[in-house]
Each structure stands twice: as structure tokens, then as C-alpha cells.
């Protein structure tokens, strides 16, 4: 039985990226980090007039998706953006395209096995029942 798998997001890095990016606050945080390079968590919270807890929740999602890195030095928490992950999210398309192109080649080779004189695939037995 194939139902919607309950932990699909937990095991799919690309879905995590998309889910993280789907929220406007998180996109703004990411934009701020892209411009500043890195920032303290307390500084990130300020423009949003959000509690540190609320910002932390967003940062956790961004971190889990691999979009930001967190660095703790003493009591100071700093975040910086990890640009690799966004590029990896785009690679799903490339990988799937390559996969199907290879399989299409294999399909073509397999179809060439079709035996015209017998009107059957080469590996099919002739009908002996008559």
C-alpha cells in the first residue's frame, strides 16, 4: 500500500529546501544573510520585531534545510548563508533528466529487439497451442 509517506519531508533534502523557502519571513532572513554575509541571531531578529524564540524556529528550519550555517562562539550565535544548497536543489532537474535520457537510450535498444518476421519481441515464444 503506498500512502503519502509520513516522514517524506524528513528524508528528502530538496523538499526541505522548498519548504524552508515557502515562508516569506524565512526568505527575508535569507536575503539579509546574503547581503550581510553573516549576522548575529539577535541582529537578525530585530527588523522583524519578533521574539528570539520565533526567529530561532525559522533559523532551525533554514539550518535543517542546509540553507544556513550556525556558529556559536561563547554566548554569541552567528548565522551565515550556505549557497551550495540552493544550487543542489536545482540539480534534481539535472539528475532526473540524465536518468531518463539514459533509460530512453536503453528503451530504444530494447525495442530494436523486436522481431518483425515473427511480429513478436525476440524473446517471446511462438504460440504452440495450435
Amino acid at each position, binding site marked *: 500500500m503506498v500512502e503519502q509517506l509520513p516522514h517524506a519531508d524528513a528524508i*528528502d533534502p*530538496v523538499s526541505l529546501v522548498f519548504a524552508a523557502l515557502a515562508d516569506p519571513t524565512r*526568505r527575508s532572513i535569507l536575503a539579509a544573510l*546574503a547581503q550581510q554575509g553573516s549576522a548575529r541571531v539577535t541582529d537578525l531578529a530585530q527588523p522583524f520585531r519578533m521574539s528570539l524564540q520565533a526567529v530561532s524556529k525559522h533559523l532551525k528550519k533554514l539550518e535543517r534545510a542546509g540553507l544556513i550555517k550556525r556558529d556559536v562562539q561563547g554566548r554569541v550565535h552567528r548565522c551565515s548563508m550556505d549557497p551550495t544548497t540552493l544550487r543542489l536543489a536545482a540539480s534534481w532537474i539535472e539528475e532526473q533528466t540524465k536518468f*531518463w535520457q539514459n533509460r530512453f537510450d*536503453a*528503451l530504444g535498444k530494447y*525495442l530494436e529487439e*523486436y522481431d518483425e518476421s515473427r511480429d513478436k519481441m525476440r524473446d517471446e515464444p511462438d504460440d504452440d497451442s495450435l
Partner: protein
Amino acid sequence: MTEQTLAEFTPDMLQLKRRYSARRDLLWRAWTEPERIKQWLSSSEWVLEKIALDLRAGGDYHFFFRSPEGKTSEVFGKYETVEAPSLLVFTWFVTGECGDVANTRVCVEFIERADGTEMRLRHERFASRTDRNNHLTGWLECMDRFVDLPASMMAQGAG
């Protein structure tokens, strides 16, 4: 001879077209009969060892792959549309040591041409339309901001 694959894609979907000189019903059989699927869906990296499929709308399928090193991978899903010999639509979920990919959707169309068959495959990143729309919005907005990341990081002042 196989021809060039025509490809187009958006961030969440790819579309491939290819012409084959084989008849449409043969293409259909190649995609829907387990012993035939094994012949071409296998690769040297992943051998399709076991197939179970229930070819009808709502029916499940399950492909079990093994690599030469003994790693395993599974592809499974449900058939959404089964219209022989022209349209096959199914969800596609990959799991295993090669990396997990969430529920996606594959649509394969077989179109009769004078010299054979045109096969069109569309692979959608999200099987649910709502998910896809929500995520595509987020993705496109971020693409604008972040694709040229080195440039934006070097830019002075607020953006």
C-alpha cells in the same frame, strides 16, 4: 535509431520527447509488462531485480533495484491513469541508499506517428498541485535574489 531527446524544464518539472521507430503498442508493452520493464529500466548501476505491479487506476507498483556492490533501492507509487496505449500517469517515489526523493509524478504519452511513435515524458517534482504551487512561488522568488549570489554579495549598500 534513437533520435535526440528534446528537453525543457522549469524548476519543478522536466519534459522530454523522443521518437522511436517502434509501434505504439510495443512502447506501451515495454512500459507496462514487468519482464519488459526490467529490460530497459535496469542500468549497470542499478539492476531491476523484482517488480510487482497492478496496472489499473489506483493500482500500486513496486520496483526493487540492486547495485553490483549490493546496495538496494526501491521505486514505488500508484497508477493514476492507465489508458492503453496512449497515456500512463503514476506517482514515483524513490527510496534507498542512493538517496531519497519524495513523491513525484510521471506522465508518459505515446503518440502515433507515420514513422513510429513519439514518446513524451513529463516528470513533476511534486505530486500534489498545492504543494507545487506553494513551493514554486518560494523558489522563483528566491531564484531572483540568490542565483547571482556572488554579484549580490559583492554589491555595496542595501539591495
